[in-house]
């Protein structure tokens, strides 16, 4: 019974990893760059939620959509101002650029007097509530995380399968030049993808905030989402979620069964094994570059 409870905790944590990994994968598919700032975007989202909810006292059901919208706009602006000028440069420069963005975000948040250096609790309505279910005691926060992730996956699936924008995004991610020739506005799509990734990060931040706390370094959890993205295969959206779940569950089980200290390392051991055995991940495509 206890193991099952640990498992549910792991699934909830895995959903968070999966959501952040989803952001990596979205950006990677569209622009073939890796954003190291994804975790910090999540942190910004959580802080924005905190500001609106605690400082301004807005009701929860207004805060959530406005945070998501604001972060989406922020993502689009970020792409326009900072990322798009150096597209086409080696991937390494863009990686360093996003590292810089992460540093800047963390630094600026820390600089806010009295708020940046503290840890805060995000006062969501369902905070601290518990559900009893035939002997299982489950925190509502964890259930909400799982439910919202499932909903979001469904929404993204519909977006990419049914809507014109989603299909255009898929086309651009497969071959930018060909998509451009077909009349798809690739540049504008790149902006939209960053917006979408930031919005997903904001959702992850709002979901994570009640479980852990809101603080300037919470974005470092994004580093655990890399293993998730790799395990799932870096170019696959369902892979990101599955990879996240896998990492979350493995981590939770390691924390439960193995001696102290293994919990934080297992995701990285898993990813190293994955890279050695199956570098393309669970859902990655096996592609070879032709000369």
């Amino acid at each position, binding site marked *: 019974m206890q193991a099952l409870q640990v498992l549910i905790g792991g699934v909830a944590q895995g959903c968070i990893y999966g959501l952040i990994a989803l952001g990596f994968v979205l950006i990677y598919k569209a622009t073939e760059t890796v954003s190291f700032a994804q975790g910090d975007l999540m942190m910004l989202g959580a802080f924005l939620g905190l500001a609106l909810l605690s400082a301004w006292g807005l009701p929860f059901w207004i805060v959530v959509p406005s945070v998501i919208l604001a972060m989406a706009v922020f993502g689009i602006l970020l792409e326009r101002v900072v990322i798009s000028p150096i597209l086409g440069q080696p991937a390494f420069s863009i990686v360093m650029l996003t590292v810089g963005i992460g540093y800047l975000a963390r630094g600026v*948040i820390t600089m806010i007097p009295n708020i940046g250096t503290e840890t805060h609790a995000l006062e969501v309505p369902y905070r601290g509530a518990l559900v009893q279910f035939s002997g299982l005691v489950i925190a509502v926060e964890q259930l909400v995380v799982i439910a919202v992730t499932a909903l979001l996956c469904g929404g993204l699936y519909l977006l990419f399968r049914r809507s014109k924008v989603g299909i255009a995004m898929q086309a651009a991610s497969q071959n930018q030049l060909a998509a451009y020739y077909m009349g798809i506005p690739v540049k504008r799509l790149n902006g939209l993808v960053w917006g979408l990734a930031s919005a997903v990060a904001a959702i992850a931040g709002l979901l994570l905030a009640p479980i852990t706390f809101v603080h300037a370094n919470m974005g470092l959890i994004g580093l655990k989402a890399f293993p998730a993205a790799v395990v799932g295969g870096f170019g696959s959206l369902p892979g990101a979620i599955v990879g996240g779940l896998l990492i979350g569950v493995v981590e939770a089980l390691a924390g439960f069964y193995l001696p102290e200290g293994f919990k934080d390392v297992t995701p990285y051991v898993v990813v190293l094994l994955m890279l050695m055995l199956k570098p393309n991940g669970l859902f990655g495509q096996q592609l070879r570059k032709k000369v």
Partner: protein
Amino acid sequence: MRFIFKQSYDQDIDLAKHGGQHFWYGLLLLLLLVAPWLADDYWLAQLTFVLIYGIVGLGLMVLAGFTGLFSLGHAAFLGVGAYTQAVLAAKGWPFPLSMAMAALLSAAVGAVVGLPALRVKGVYLGIATLSFGFIVEEVLARWESVTGGNAGKMVGQLQAFGWTVDSSEGFYLVCLVLTIAATLAVLNLLRSTTGRAFVAIRDSEISAQSMGIHLAYYKTLSFALSAALAGLGGALYAHKIRFLSPDQFNILQSVDLLLMVVIGGLGSVHGAFLGAIFLITMPQLISLFKDYLPAAIGQAPGLQAAVYGLVLILFVLFEPMGLYGRWLKARTWLQLFPFYRRGLFKRQKAFQKSDRLK
């Protein structure tokens, strides 16, 4: 303007291209040699740190700047070197021997990390090295019988064959000798077959492979060499800082090291040292200007991270060749005056080299 008349083929691979370089590098060497008598203790300590980070930067430059493989876990090699040195020094090994061991052990670890590099590239490699860095940090924290765990480990003074380096001047000179040796080694490496092979792999793996370069061998070698230099730097770092704890070798340190070579200028030996100067003097500069800023900004704890981030963004956007690139431009401007054109160093818009199939 300067014209170099080449009279023999050897001139092509000379370390110093002309008399001016002999003069300036000679002067620099002289200044560095007399620095212990010119600078006070504080600045000498900073200079020592610049040299130590310069060695580590050289290592990372070989890997990231010349072989085109980037590592997000380089602090791990630094840590391996530092702890090896700490343990061996405590056992009374003379420092030349223990430093060689530190470098060798780091190199061995680097070769192991290099193994996934044979199968994965680009992003995946970054993540593999990142994961490795986390694992090493955790091992350093948990292997308490050797590393002292999170409580930390004290490191004694540098000693060899009855001679103890107890003054900061003496330690500085040891660092200087090792730095010069490392720099010369890297410069010589880069003009040898091995170095050319590294650069070829950086520019295009496929064409390097078709020219008969054994990718697996050279990539592993690059990792091992880079790790060895980082280990050597780590060994010196251990003696300079005198107290080791695992959190000195975490991901932020790795990012700092990467930031150092990017800001210094990827693909240049000068860049490693310019980056080291930047990394060491930046906190000083910030604390110097702190007093002139309004208290709300100046006294805020996150200022340093914000400045680092901003500088990094600005460099990637506007000066991808780093500080050394800036210097090259200034020098060319002076040399060609008044014929310098703005487009001379314009970066080429290239189609992305894709990790995926196009």
